[in-house]
């Protein structure tokens, strides 16, 4: 979705203001939100792409007025309301192993990659109302395949519950000028990680 979460290139937010000696959490409640999100995430009712969509899919004014862990809390509340409380309980003794294992997104490739390092590609102009990981600023832009990351779960489909539909994933590099025109930094490039369905070949 073209939501407020898709912030790349938006103006007006002001300077970055790092906090000196920032604590890991700002208040007890942030700890509990983090822990509940991780524990419930291990519960099997939803996947990480559903989680991201539950966080981002809200009115822009609301998204922008909430702090990071408030967005996480709102997302968790929605996931539970829509999909139920976890029925697989993460036990304390399982925590180290579950965190160490993480949630790898790579899958065994079932076809050849369409692109190789150095290929020129153009990103598609898509504007789905659902979840996507192709940011607005990088749509319809010509770039170069910088890396082939592997064959990964496709968030646009996985977020809907229709399966993992894994796809080849690439780092694609764009010049600052391609992304931002004359207002771009000519001595910068931006790489995004783009799934093959986002890309067309440039002849």
């Amino acid at each position, binding site marked *: 979705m073209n939501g407020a*979460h898709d912030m*790349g*290139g938006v103006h007006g*937010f002001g*300077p*970055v*203001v*790092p*906090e000196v000696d*920032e604590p*890991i959490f*700002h*208040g*007890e*409640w942030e*700890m*509990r*939100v*983090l*822990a*509940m999100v*991780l*524990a*419930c995430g291990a519960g099997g009712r939803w996947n990480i792409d559903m989680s991201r969509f539950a*966080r*981002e899919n809200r009115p822009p004014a609301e998204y*922008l007025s909430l*702090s*990071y862990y408030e967005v996480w*809390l709102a997302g968790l*509340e929605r996931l*539970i309301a829509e999909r139920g409380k*976890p*029925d697989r*309980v*993460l*036990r*304390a003794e399982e*925590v180290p192993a579950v*965190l160490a*294992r*993480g*949630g*790898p*997104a790579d899958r065994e490739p079932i076809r050849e990659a369409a692109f190789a390092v150095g290929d020129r590609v153009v990103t598609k102009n898509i504007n789905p109302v659902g979840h996507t*990981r192709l*940011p607005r*600023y*990088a749509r319809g832009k010509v770039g170069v395949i910088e*890396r082939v990351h592997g064959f*990964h779960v496709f968030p646009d489909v996985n977020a809907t519950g229709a399966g993992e539909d894994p796809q080849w994933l690439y*780092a694609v590099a764009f010049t600052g000028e391609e992304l931002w025109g004359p207002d771009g*930094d000519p*001595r*910068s*490039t*931006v*790489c*995004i990680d783009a*799934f093959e369905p986002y890309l067309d070949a440039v002849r």
Partner: protein
Amino acid sequence: MTHSDLSDVQVRVRALESALVAGGHVDPAALDALVETYETQVGPHLGARVVARAWLDEAYRERLLGGATAAIAELGIRGRQGEHMVALENTPTVHNLVVCTLCSCYPWSVLGLPPVWYKSAPYRSRAVSDPRGVLADFGVTLGSEVSVRVWDSTAEVRYLVVPMRPAGTDGWDEARLASLVTRDAMIGVGVPSGAQTPSRPGSRL
């Protein structure tokens, strides 16, 4: 945020935890273990070890740049939000900077949880369109000969910046080198804390 708003959030968090625990959906000891992990075990000291090792050990550096997930796992470092790692080496002419414009993806396994500024709208909006302006917010100025490569973490790949080894550190051991490697340097918004002069001529970073 006002005090009453904060209380509302706290009430919601407590209510949710109570309901989840009471229904047997969540093990409260697991919540404590999760918090404890990210408060005391996982943090930038892990990434600093990786960087210091790469500075000291050329073969390790090559393995890190060629396949970061496995090379990092050699040091016993692995896990959630670090399943697919890529290491990005800064050079006198290339400076790497990491962001996630769409949410706040971050290499938890090597850096711990992200700071607030990394998750903030100012950083997420400008890192891709005005990276030198963002670096200036951190007091970092790059020479005109340095190009900036911004990495927007739009999938499950997580990026670790390997900064340049500071000059004047010949003969330092891994632990001493690691003490120079700040979290910000591994995101790309800072330089190693002891870096007075660059390790190679021609760079002002």
